[in-house]
């Protein structure tokens, strides 16, 4: 007999209860726990020990369940988060502390963090920061920037003061949806499928550019036990084409004859779970023919390059343009000009939850459960692909384990949908980490040349910006990047004359799409780096130079848009003044005694327009009151960790005039919750927030009108009745007698908000955004001169959020954004075919993020709900240039090619000392 030996039944203790299981040889403990024992609080982020999300305790020791052969659990004690929180006092106090300190955002890393922290506290009840980072160094988090996790572990057991009052805007209440993230019950994309679901596996191109031909697929299905179907482009009932911007839709669900990037799908295999587990993809009948690939923009623009899309000559997808005055003339007349050339790398979103979901047919309709940032856009895309009307498709978003822009696009959705349609059975899939990395969108690599001039007084005269952006094989959000960059590349400063062009270039790389900032973090690197050089040439203090040139109320942006209120950049920069001076002085003292480690301080500013660029992007919020007196908020703004469930609830509660904990919340579900738009463009607090404000006000007005009460009345929702107190008089509205609508509501309100924008003309002049948010960061670093390593010491981040709806969530966004900006600046570089995992592609760990001080600036915005502005993307725009400027301050060398790895810094230092 030459068959795989199956391991006999093993017994072990799982969360205090004896269990038995029958793992196959080489089965991972994580698989056994999740699939056979339904312990889905064990999250799988990488299957390689790189992310730590699957951390469990085995005989008290934290291990990655994805790296432990399941049979090694035999006879041992295995503990997971769900068990620990109910029985372990350390876990319980950690969970309370994570809640109080906002240490969980999306929640996908939280089980790994909490389980690791339990092991630490059992050994060391009062750990210091070094002990905490050593213990949690094996768990990656992409949302929080780790600082609140460190705080939560350090302060576990000390009861944090709970904010008092109604939880209205301005109050740092804990997240309203935290509980499930902290007890292991949160259900992400791979946690919701029924056990009997079929499993889907996508076959992808191993080459950057290739032709292919299938063998006999039917014969292969017949010959392979447990396989139900193979899907190819022939199985697509509608259009084999999707894209987030209809005019640019160009991506096939399945390639038909040519693959334009490594990782492009050609087929999908649907089968029983065991059959897919045992599937040897090498045996799948497809023959590849590798073609020459253009992986760089230079290669794609060369005359002999292959044209990726026939309608886009020269591989130029599109361009964006803004011009005001005469930039060339202004530069020629300038007292001082500087010029620089900058490059940035592909950056991977690296959310810890790979794309996952499941689909099934119910009552003749397709129901799709998936982690997404944009349920309605998902449905729109599927309508085209499936050839089905919207009414036949229901999207039920699961919890989202981080998104940052990439989960706006379709990933698993069409495959799952097609498989459910074809087989009539529930089908699930989760991308492997490398599949996620190779096939989903990235931040655009940029090549930027910029020139900036100033007059003798240090006032900016003009700038010329030319950027090209590697948009990869398909458009995705590339057009948005091309449009946004010229609008923002000036930074929040007054430029009388300006010209900026950005082009998206197709290459045989994965599609570049949306990633926190849509190209603006890249352009800010160029502009803010050059500002330091310009200030130095002028003999100006680098911060004061920015303050001198900061855009003010009443001054035109480079698009000619004039805001007569709400321009907060000057206040952000001025808020850094004290830290700038003390940190510069401290650095001078350090450097006077330094041997080999030089300290530097850098600043950078940034801005970002909230919402779509000159396009409608409405949000709708609905609320109802049930006969029992329960207020129900239909909140469709996808909370991907940033906190919209909480922020929208706070805004609505304040507008209605009730405590936030009065509300019951129904999340996004295309059947029952109206469209709150996509979670992108820093628009949810601003746009959906306004819809929530309007809905709250409308419901309030309706109630007051029913009893003819004054506007200042207090409303109270009780059992089956509403009480309205109007000074001395109290009115009671009995709900039991009122007619229910089809959804069981006796009262309701639904309101829509769309930001007022106006189109831009051919020179980019117009009103692209109703509001901007503003930011300025200060970074302190030390550079090891011999090794070129950078140690960030501290950040101070000033953010004008108009009005902080929830100051704790603001801090969480700022810290998380800084961690991503730090990664982009210092370590992150995705190379197709080379760094398709989380050990070759590095994101910051808990040991890489220094203390971050957040300064909240509130320059109210006339359009924002209660004055609030968006924040999600602003938080990383100044980070990379602030770090690069700090490195320059420490060493005298300007890093122009990101990331600033030790190797690159040393190369610049060598050049510098040779010169």
């Amino acid at each position, binding site marked *: 007999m030459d068959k795989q030996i199956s391991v006999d039944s093993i017994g072990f203790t799982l969360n205090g209860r004896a269990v038995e299981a029958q793992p196959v040889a080489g089965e991972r403990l994580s698989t056994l726990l999740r699939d056979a024992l339904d312990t889905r609080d064990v999250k799988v982020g990488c299957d390689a020990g790189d992310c730590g999300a699957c951390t469990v305790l085995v005989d008290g020791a934290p291990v990655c369940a994805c790296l432990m052969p399941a049979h090694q659990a035999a006879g041992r004690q295995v503990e997971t988060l769900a068990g620990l929180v109910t029985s372990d006092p350390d876990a319980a106090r950690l969970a309370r502390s994570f809640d109080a300190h906002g240490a969980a955002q999306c929640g996908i890393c939280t089980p790994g963090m909490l389980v690791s922290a339990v092991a630490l506290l059992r050994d060391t009840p009062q750990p210091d920061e070094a002990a905490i980072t050593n213990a949690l160094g094996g768990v990656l988090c992409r949302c929080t920037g780790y600082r609140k996790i460190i705080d939560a572990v350090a302060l576990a057991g000390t009861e944090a003061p709970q904010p008092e009052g109604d939880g209205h805007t301005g109050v740092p209440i804990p997240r309203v949806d935290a509980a499930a993230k902290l007890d292991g019950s949160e259900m992400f994309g791979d946690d919701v499928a029924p056990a009997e679901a079929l499993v889907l596996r996508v076959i992808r191109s191993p080459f950057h550019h290739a032709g292919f031909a299938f063998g006999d697929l039917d014969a292969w299905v017949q010959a392979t036990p447990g396989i139900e179907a193979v899907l190819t482009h022939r199985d697509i009932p509608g259009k084999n084409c999707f894209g987030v911007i209809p005019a640019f839709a160009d991506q096939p669900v399945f390639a038909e004859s040519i693959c334009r990037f490594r990782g492009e799908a050609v087929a999908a295999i649907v089968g029983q779970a065991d059959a897919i587990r045992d599937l040897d993809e090498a045996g799948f009948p497809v023959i590849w023919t590798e073609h020459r690939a253009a992986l760089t923009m230079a290669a794609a623009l060369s005359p002999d390059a292959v044209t990726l899309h026939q309608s886009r000559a020269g591989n130029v997808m599109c361009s964006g343009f803004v011009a005001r005055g005469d930039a060339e003339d202004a530069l020629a007349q300038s007292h001082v000009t500087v010029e620089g050339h900058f490059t940035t790398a592909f950056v991977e979103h690296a959310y810890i939850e790979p794309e996952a979901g499941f689909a099934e047919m119910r009552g003749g309709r397709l129901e799709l459960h998936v982690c997404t940032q944009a349920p309605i856009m998902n449905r729109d895309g599927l309508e085209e692909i499936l050839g089905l009307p919207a009414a036949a498709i229901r999207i039920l978003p699961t919890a989202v384990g981080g998104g940052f822009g990439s989960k706006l696009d379709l990933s698993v959705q069409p495959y799952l949908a097609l498989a459910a349609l074809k087989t009539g059975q529930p089908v699930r899939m989760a991308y492997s980490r490398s599949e996620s990395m190779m096939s989903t969108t990235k931040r655009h690599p940029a090549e930027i040349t910029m020139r900036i001039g100033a007059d003798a007084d240090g006032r900016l005269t003009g700038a010329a910006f030319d950027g090209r952006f590697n948009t990869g094989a398909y458009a995705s959000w590339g057009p948005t990047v091309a449009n946004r960059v010229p609008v923002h590349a000036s930074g929040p400063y007054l430029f009388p004359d300006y010209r900026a062009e950005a082009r998206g270039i197709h290459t045989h790389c994965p599609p570049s799409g949306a990633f926190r900032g849509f190209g603006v973090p890249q352009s800010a690197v160029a502009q803010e780096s050059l500002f330091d050089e310009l200030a130095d040439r002028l003999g100006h203090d680098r911060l004061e130079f920015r303050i001198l040139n900061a855009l003010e109320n009443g001054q035109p942006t480079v698009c000619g848009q004039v805001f007569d209120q709400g321009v907060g950049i000057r206040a952000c920069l001025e808020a850094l003044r004290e830290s700038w001076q003390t940190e510069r002085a401290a650095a001078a003292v350090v450097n006077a005694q330094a041997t080999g480690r030089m300290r530097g301080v850098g600043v950078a500013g940034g801005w970002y327009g909230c919402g779509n660029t000159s396009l409608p992007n409405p949000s709708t919020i609905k609320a109802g009151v049930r006969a029992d007196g329960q207020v129900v908020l239909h909140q469709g703004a996808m909370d991907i960790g940033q906190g919209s469930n909480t922020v929208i609830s706070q805004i609505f509660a304040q507008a209605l005039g009730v405590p936030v904990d009065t509300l019951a919340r129904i999340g996004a579900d295309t059947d029952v919750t109206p469209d709150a738009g996509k979670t992108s463009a820093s628009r949810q607090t601003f746009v959906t927030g306004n819809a929530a404000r309007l809905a709250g006000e409308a419901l309030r007005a309706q109630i007051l009108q029913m009893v003819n009460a004054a506007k200042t009345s207090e409303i109270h929702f009780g059992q089956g009745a509403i009480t309205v107190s109007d000074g001395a008089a109290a009115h009671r509205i009995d709900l039991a007698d009122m007619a229910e609508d089809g959804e069981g509501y006796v009262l309701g309100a639904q309101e829509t908000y769309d930001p007022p924008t106006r189109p831009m003309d051919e020179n980019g002049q117009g009103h692209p955004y109703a509001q901007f948010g503003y930011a300025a960061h200060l970074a302190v670093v030390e550079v090891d001169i011999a090794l070129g390593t950078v140690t960030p010491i501290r950040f101070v981040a000033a953010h004008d959020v108009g009005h902080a709806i929830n100051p704790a969530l603001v801090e969480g966004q700022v810290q998380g954004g800084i961690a991503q900006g730090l990664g982009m600046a210092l370590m992150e570089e995705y190379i197709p075919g080379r760094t398709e995992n989380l050990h070759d592609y590095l994101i910051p760990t808990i040991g890489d993020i220094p203390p971050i001080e957040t300064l909240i600036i509130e320059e109210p915005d006339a359009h924002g709900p209660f004055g609030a502005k968006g924040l999600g993307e602003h938080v990383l725009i100044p980070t990379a240039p602030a770090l690069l400027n700090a490195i320059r301050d420490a060493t005298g060398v300007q890093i122009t090619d990101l990331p600033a*790895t030790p190797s690159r810094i040393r190369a610049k230092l060598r050049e510098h000392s040779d010169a």
Partner: protein
Amino acid sequence: MRSRRVAIVAGGTDFFPAQGRRPIHHDVLDLTRVTALGGIAWTSPDSLRIGATATWTDVLRADLPPAFDGLKAAAREVGSVQIQNAGTVAGNLCNASPAADGVPPLLTLDAEVELAGAEGPRRLALSDFLKGPRQTALHPDEIMVALHIPRPPDHVTSAFGKLGARRYLVISITMTAVVIGLDAAGRIDVARIAVGACSPVAQRLTDLERDLIGVTPSEVTITPRHLASLAPISDVRADDVYRLEAVPAQIHRAIHRAILRASFRAGGDHG
């Protein structure tokens, strides 16, 4: 075992990442089930045995003389706590990555590996066991049973330095391990220097070691000749020029850390 394909697994920390989601169509032999393969102990006053299933955490918890501080420092840098709790020292050697954290300190400890197979047991110097990237002297029917480390001179100390682009969970750009002894006059009388991630297999710098004998730590000079045997590559982590430049800086620092630790232990000039 000879008649069919068998995968050897202990901690699983290299096995599963290499496997990815490809199916396992062969047997898996779990060494951790063999109790005799575990443990860290002196088998004689002059020889320390690290069993094949001893983990990095076992190394950290073992009571060992200062000559092993470098190995312990490497243990702390292997991946993360999760990896250290599962990953084994022997597995790190059998995986034979040029960037294996355990190899430089074990080279400076003159480690030998004990292999067992159908032909009987045999011992090899670690430097003979490692043949190249992902290549070892292990025969298809052999397993590593243990490592054996001869007791280092009592007065030596050691250190390990790992250079990576982030703090935790990082593959080395370069790494250096040193074992250093000073005589009564403060001159180096024992020098063992090993460098990893700068050649297909980590290696001792024997020319440098020879030249260090008789000099004081402040007189340590490292010349290109000392590094001539290194052949670093350029990859995603760093280029070759950088690696060659970083190594002497790392060696200097490792020597000084080792000596500082010695004087600290002796209550010397810090006291």
